[in-house]
């Protein structure tokens, strides 16, 4: 596990709103977990309006990443260890 910005990632949504990111995750990732702001992912604490939805698909993790000047990016990256950790910490969200 390392710095998110140094990892190989894909941006699914750019300059999105926190709501657009939440809706995208819930619509496209049946296995999603709702977490509170401040949830630690890799080396960062998640910023957002609760609940923050994190999508999981095998080792793939999809989550919102907020920067003050650029809004929120929905990022997709692969990390088996972190996906396992999130599954162990958070129960699947009720649909």
């Amino acid at each position, binding site marked *: 596990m390392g710095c998110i910005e140094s990892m190989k990632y894909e941006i699914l949504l750019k300059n999105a709103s*926190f709501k657009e990111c939440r809706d995208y995750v819930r619509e496209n990732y049946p296995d999603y977990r709702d977490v509170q*702001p*401040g949830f630690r992912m890799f080396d960062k*604490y998640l910023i957002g309006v*609760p609940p923050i939805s994190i999508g999981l698909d095998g080792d793939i993790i999809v989550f919102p990443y*907020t*920067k*003050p*000047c650029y809004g*929120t990016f929905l990022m997709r990256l692969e990390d088996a260890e972190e996906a396992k950790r999130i599954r162990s910490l958070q129960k699947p969200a009720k649909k």
Partner: protein
Amino acid sequence: MSENKDAVLLLGCPQVPVQTGIALYLLYALKKAGITPVIAGNRAARLLVEVSDPGRHYVGEVIDLDRCIAELAEKKRDFSYFFVFIHNDAGVSYAATVQALSSSPVIALIYGEHYKDIAAQIDFPCEKVAAKAVHNPTPLKKKIEEVLPWVVSNL
């Protein structure tokens, strides 16, 4: 009443001109009320404030925004008040985050061209101070003057 109290000003992206002026004004007003202000922001936002007050008459401690959030999340630090500068969706996200991480009052300073739409997105507990201020800080300054005495004496 405000003895040993502190307040953090969470700065947003400095693309809206009023932010730095309002931040300096708020530093002055908080100090006058006996509250120790701390600035948290990204590098550009911090530098704008620091360069604008070279004698450090108003600016005291300045910290990185990510570090501020990390210390709150790790329960290493808390503040008596959170003043969050909001002119975009990211600002709303930061305000919601500190509201979730601390039990201290959150005061959302909402400004910019789309201040009404931004204010409408905020449905979590906080005090909203909103004005259409883009280049001219006066409307937001007036709102702060109205609410700050109430905030520091009641919250």
